[in-house]
């Protein structure tokens, strides 16, 4: 009897394994195209980038130099300044994006579908528009002589300011542009997440006498945490990689006030052909992003209640 059961078990397991195997094969075959793309266009370039960072690589010269590129980065004042600028950009951008998108979505998600779609559309517009056209418009807004920003401030009696030309304001101006480009997606995500907060929880809290702020703080906010975590990490990574608006508005100036690591990577690689050095910069940036993302996961991840 025992033997028969064992035999049955075995044949069932074998059958499951066989079925599983077939299913897996099919599944992996379907995944394979994406895997090939992922390896070819993400994993390979990444590893190659790390490899190149140990070489003095310019056009057709390719010489192993060990850690020289990294050592020269530590001593490069412009790189350190760019790294600091990048951190300021991230620290300035991420909280503002979270606050604005939360504020906007909290205000629009209960409105009628038409109004909600209208606002979602308005705030999402910068995300779908070409960054180049948006930066050209911002260039005109900030223009020292003909810009609308100076016109508006002049109505209050302020002297015109060279917004992008003054190291005091240039980075702030970049953050402002970056915020408008970054809020679109978080608003969409928050509106969806707010819609998923069960009405009964909120009603129960209200019946128990919770004030609107308490309802938000203790019911809505914790339930939004998974979305918030995603938005924080995505916005952080995007802010670290900020390049096009810098390239188009200030070219890293004035006197490196808006230079970011990504801009430096571009300049060193494509203007000066120092591919090894710029790969080293890329690796350093990737490590910094990784460390910060891990910290964010540890810090906010604990609060996430799925």
């Amino acid at each position, binding site marked *: 009897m025992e033997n028969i059961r064992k035999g049955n078990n075995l044949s069932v397991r074998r059958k499951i394994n066989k079925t599983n195997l077939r299913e897996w094969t*099919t599944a992996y075959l379907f995944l394979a195209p994406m895997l090939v793309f992922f390896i070819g266009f993400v994993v390979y370039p990444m590893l190659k980038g790390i490899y190149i960072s140990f070489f003095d690589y310019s*056009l*057709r010269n390719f010489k192993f130099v060990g850690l020289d590129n990294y050592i020269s980065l530590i001593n490069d004042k412009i790189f350190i300044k760019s790294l600091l600028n990048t951190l300021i950009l991230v620290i300035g951008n991420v909280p503002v994006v979270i606050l604005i998108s939360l504020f906007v979505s909290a205000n629009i998600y209960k409105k009628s579908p038409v109004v909600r779609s209208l606002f979602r559309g308005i705030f999402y517009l910068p995300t779908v528009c070409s960054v180049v056209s948006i930066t050209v418009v911002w260039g005109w807004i900030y223009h020292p*002589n003909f810009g609308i920003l100076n016109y508006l401030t002049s109505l209050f009696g302020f002297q015109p300011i060279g917004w992008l030309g003054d190291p005091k304001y240039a980075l702030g101006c970049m953050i402002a542009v970056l915020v408008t480009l970054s809020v679109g997606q978080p608003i969409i995500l928050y509106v969806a997440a707010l819609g998923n907060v069960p009405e009964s929880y909120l009603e129960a809290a209200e019946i128990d006498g919770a004030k609107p702020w308490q309802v938000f703080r203790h019911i809505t906010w914790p339930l939004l945490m998974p979305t918030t975590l995603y938005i924080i990490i995505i916005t952080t990574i995007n802010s670290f990689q900020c390049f096009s608006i810098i390239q188009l508005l200030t070219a890293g*100036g004035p*006197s490196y006030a808006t230079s970011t690591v990504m801009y430096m990577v571009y300049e060193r690689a494509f203007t*000066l052909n120092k591919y090894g050095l710029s790969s080293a910069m890329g690796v350093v940036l990737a490590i910094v992003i990784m460390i910060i993302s891990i910290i964010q996961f540890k810090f906010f991840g604990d609060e996430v209640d799925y």
Partner: protein
Amino acid sequence: MKTKKVLVSLVAISMIASMFAGCGKSTTESTTSTSSAPSSTAKAESVEITWWDYPNFQSGTAGDYEKQLVASFNKKYPNIKVNVEMIDFASGPQKVNTAIASNSAPDLIFDYPGRIIDYARNGVMAELDDLFSDSLKSDVSTKILDACKLDNKYYMYPINTAPNMMAFNKTMLDKAGLTNMLPLNKEDRLWTVSEFEALLKAIKEKIPTLTAPTAIFAKSSAGDQGTRAWISNMGGVSTIAPDLSKYTINDPKDVAALQWIVDSVNSGLILKGGEALASNDVVDMYLGEKIACVPLYNKTLLASSAAKKTSNFEEVFIPYPTPDASVKPQFEAYIGGFGVFNNNDVKKVEAAKKLVDFIANDQDTAKETLKQTGSFSVRSSITGLYDDAESKYCESMIKYLGTYYNQVQGFAEMRTYYFPVLQNILLGTQTPKAGLDDFVKKANETLVKK
């Protein structure tokens, strides 16, 4: 069930296969296109070369004139197939660099010495000594010839040139009654800093609606040759030593000239905010009649800018002012020409050289080609391409070409140090002396860096 599985597997496999389909080189395509060349006798000898071109020619859409040239070239050399691919000035240089780094460079490029000689320094260009006949060498200024050389070998075949100067809106000055303050009646229109300053002051006073009489720009490296020439001509000491051994723009005289510029910015003779303006912003302001004088202009710009003018005003080229009449101006110039890439295929190199020689020297097309560039021939024997007075004047000023240094070691890196320093100086965070000393120190290091 089984059919379904087979079907699913087939779909999955075909998806993978379709991805790889795009990756392979389509060799069949190139063979058919090569054999379509109208040659029956020398099919084995047919060569296919690629010419990457910036929009250097002005008529029609970019690439039109290149096609015409290739068509006339193919009448003479039917078995050399030329693929013209257009690149733009903004992203083109990066594309070329990437192509060189990945061993897929074109065979031919029309560019300037700053880049071509730098490619040669990296060992990717073919030497062109055999194209430089004695008659060519005696016909072209040594300053231009030197710019095409690296270690005494020619790597660039020069075609056209245009000196960079200042330009004034003459119509505007006519209306304000200030034209007599321009050096139009002087020999070669040479003038001094004090005359220039007097004119700027008069413009500021007589035309108060202007944003400023003139403007400076330092946002990026674009157009930086204009501001360097402005400073070094007003100071009277050239940007670089004649033997190209060191930069000399921190000479006290040039420092004083830059101080003059800073003072003029503060007094409103030059527009404030130059640190955030790019050269094309300033040219646009000039064309939009917001300023009366543009500090960087040349014959090519004159031709390409006409459409952007708000009104059809008359413009005059004026050289950069010098400290006094005894100091002659020294212009920086645009020099255009061909470089041939050495892609380890002798036939392609030879074919590319034939195309260079054809474009430069073909009796039927050479002059038209020069006109298409909107500039002048590097050959002193070819003159009078244009009929208007300003072009003729411009052509006559090629004799004031200063030491050309765009081909020196580290030129591109030097440029990345220059404009941030100029920004600092315009912002007042560095004095002209400290800034220029700082720049020259870094720039001199680029001259010897390997």
